[in-house]
């Protein structure tokens, strides 16, 4: 079921490259919005100093401390930006997801009108969905405390450090799992809202929770598969990026291109997830086949009625 949803999902994303570009460019835009003031601070601080060239190599921790020290006020402004911009970016991505789901649900060619219209149509609903799903998020987040409870039950209030250390890793895993589960439920709630043109987000949320619980293996399997692909990509990306450390303009350009290729890949994963989930949802929630009744009638001794 997972692969049969993944394949058409991937095909759909390939067919809507412009939508992919929108998601990628949105991410790039907000990243630049965050980084540009920081770059300005860096340039202002470094000026014509030879540090400008030295930073092309390894990061100098002396420089880092000096930069923070001599830019304390600007730093606090930047910190404010770091809180606001991600929130706005997340809202915008939520907005875009309505457009993507609308295009995928209609299974028609991408047009700006279709995409942006869908985004606008569903944004309000999705915002309400966020509010309704907060208790679900809190509940799922508490999954990690099962570890705390188990630890206390088996090892008491004062366990050896190795217990709490490994327990901490288990807790982190449970936390990641809870985010994954929440993400899944949130996705299917949105899909439900789009496919059924549902206005009541509480109903969509309920339907999503029901759908996920009834089809846990398929839904979790699909989400986890794409999560694993993303994680694998990061594992491949990191050493490649680290190898691009030579202080040369060409190498820095290559590094930038590699980074952006990776982010484009992540945008592809996101859209593939939406499209595949939609296919999975449709596949598992389709109406039952029409029932055909057959019967044998003994016609012996009976004359068919004639006009």
């Amino acid at each position, binding site marked *: 079921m997972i692969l049969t949803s993944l394949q058409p999902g991937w095909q759909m994303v390939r067919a809507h490259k412009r939508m992919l570009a929108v998601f990628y460019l949105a*991410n*790039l835009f907000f990243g*630049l919005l965050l*980084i540009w003031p*920081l*770059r300005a601070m*860096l*340039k202002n*601080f*470094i*000026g*014509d*100093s*030879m*540090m*400008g*060239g*030295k*930073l092309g190599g*390894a*990061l100098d*921790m*002396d*420089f880092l*401390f*000096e930069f923070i*020290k*001599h830019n304390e006020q600007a730093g606090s402004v930047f910190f404010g930006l770091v809180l606001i911009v*991600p929130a706005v970016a*997340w809202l915008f*991505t*939520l907005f875009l997801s309505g457009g993507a789901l609308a295009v995928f649900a209609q299974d028609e060619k991408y047009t700006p009108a279709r995409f942006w219209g869908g985004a606008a149509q569903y944004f309000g609903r999705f915002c309400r969905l966020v509010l309704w799903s907060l208790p679900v998020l809190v509940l799922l987040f508490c999954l990690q405390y099962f570890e705390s409870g188990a630890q206390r039950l088996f090892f008491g209030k*004062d366990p*050896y*450090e*190795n217990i*709490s*250390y490994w*327990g*901490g890793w288990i*807790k*982190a*895993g449970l*936390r*990641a799992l809870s*985010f994954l589960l929440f993400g899944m439920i*949130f996705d299917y709630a949105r899909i439900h809202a789009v496919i059924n043109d549902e206005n009541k987000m509480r109903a969509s949320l309920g339907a999503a929770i029901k759908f996920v619980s009834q089809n846990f293996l398929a839904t979790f399997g699909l989400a986890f598969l794409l*999560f694993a692909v*993303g*994680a694998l990509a990061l594992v491949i990306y990191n050493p490649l990026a*680290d190898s691009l450390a030579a*202080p*040369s303009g060409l190498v*820095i350009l290559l*590094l*930038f291109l590699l*980074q952006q290729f990776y*982010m484009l890949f*992540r945008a592809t994963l*996101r859209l593939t997830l939406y499209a595949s989930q939609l296919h999975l949802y449709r596949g598992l929630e389709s109406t039952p086949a029409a029932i055909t009744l057959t019967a044998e009638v003994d016609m012996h001794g009976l004359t068919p009625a004639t006009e």
Partner: protein
Amino acid sequence: MKESGGVSRGNKIDKEGWGFIEVNKITSAAGEDWTGQMEFIHPDDDNAEDKTVFRLPLAKPLAHNDSIIVNFDFTAKLPQPPFARTGAKAEYFFVGQWFPKIGVYIDQQWNCHQFHANSEFFADYGVYNVRMTVPEKNILGATGLLVEKKTNGDDTATHFYHAEDVHDFAWTTSPEFVEFTGRAQDVEIRVLMQPDRAYQGLRHLEAAKTAVEYFQNWYGDYPFPNLTVVDPRRGAGGAGGMEYPTLITAGSTYGLPEGLRAVELVIIHEFGHNYWYHLLASNEFEESWMDEGINTYTEIQIMSDKYGPVGDALDLFGIKLNTLQQHRGSYLFNADYDPTVRRTWEYYSGGSWGANSYSRPGVLLTTLQNYLGKETMQKIMRAYVERWRFKHPKTRDFIEVANDVSGQNLNWFFEQALFSNATLDYSVDRVFTREAKKGEGYDFKFSVATPDSAMSNGKNEPADESTADSVASKSQPKLYESGVHIRRLGAFKFPVEVVAEFANGEKVREQWDGQELWKKFNYIKPTKLVSASIDPEHKIALDMNYTNNSKAIEAASLGVNKLTARLLFWMQFLLDQPEFMSLFTAFIPSF
């Protein structure tokens, strides 16, 4: 407690677990009860409720070289869990600051301060004979040497320890210690590890060996035959990272990576205190830099030599941090609140106390070492140890040793570094290079300036007599007039080296005494100036800003672009997180 607000060294007091020392009775050798003569005093402030110092007036003064026996019957209750360097948790006991300690009679008076939040101690040398009775199964470590362990037949055992020429005594006991032993040169080392961190035992032992070897080789003989290193129990960190004669506490955590050298740092630092605090028993109340600061300096040198030069403190996930960088960072953020030498409870804040006790002295002594040379500095430190071992040196005594051994008057340095809050910051304010123009004037002929003849170091030397026309032939190379303008931005004056680099690879090194507010260097050369830098090797660790120490004619933006690209990626990655998947939470264990 008033000063600390109930928080000491990062630990909060447990209101159910107060500790105290109560003197129950004081008697003379003849049995006279002197308890009623005990009088609490508060020599440092107006806090009449402070009962950490008491005086006991004698019936008649004690003559020079005379002695007296005074018996103190006291009760010590340990904080639970450990707080402010002492305490107990479950089966683990660390017993420090547990007995009434006699102050120091020095400079014709008693020097005895109250117990402050951001301070340590000052006591005098003596001989300690201590018998500690603990459960028989317990392992015990203490200051000094074990003389005898006697089983009492009631599931307890009494450990008798003897220590000479020490000015404090601490001990620890737990049935769960896992013991590791080793030897470094002539010193027997004993490491008492917690069972859940026993796998780090050899790491602790190696760090202790490193400490003993470096200190003995560089600074002089460690006068005791043994050293005990204690790994504090989980939840008992309040007694960690502390020093006592022949016994130190470290501090670690399960899973600590090898690249994070916290174990090595703390052991080298705490062992160092057996020199700077114990052997050289300076007054930790009044001149905390003399133990913590000098110790930070020696810690920086040893860590760099043993694990450096890059990333000696941290070398993990591509992040490299030196101990010197770590302390310089700390100093930068608290550089000018106070002078280094100050009574510890009078610093502006805990941050200022920390920076001025530890980081700033560590950085300034490293600067001094780079100025004098490593060999001279080591001679100074060895001489300091030799001349003042088992005594109570003061700041002026250290300065005197430094002046004497170096053969220079370094008062100009120490006055600024220790007794003022002056900060050091030299910057290259301006660099320029342009085609040299022939001078013009009415009814006067100037020669074309010749290279390197006229304007070096700002001195104008007489121009050559030959005429411009005759000199300015087509075969003459094009000349460039270049300038390097240096400014002293901080109040701290220090001699600096300036290096001017030219397009043909030539480097001109200039020395400037750093006294005035600015200095201009000018050059006439057949090559353009490319860049100028002050102290290019970063020998002046006290400099607040290395970034403004250099300037290039053409700004290089390579580093900024690379850093921007890296940061952009991480911003994009994190922006992608909330909705898609919180991958990064999987890598952050929580406890």
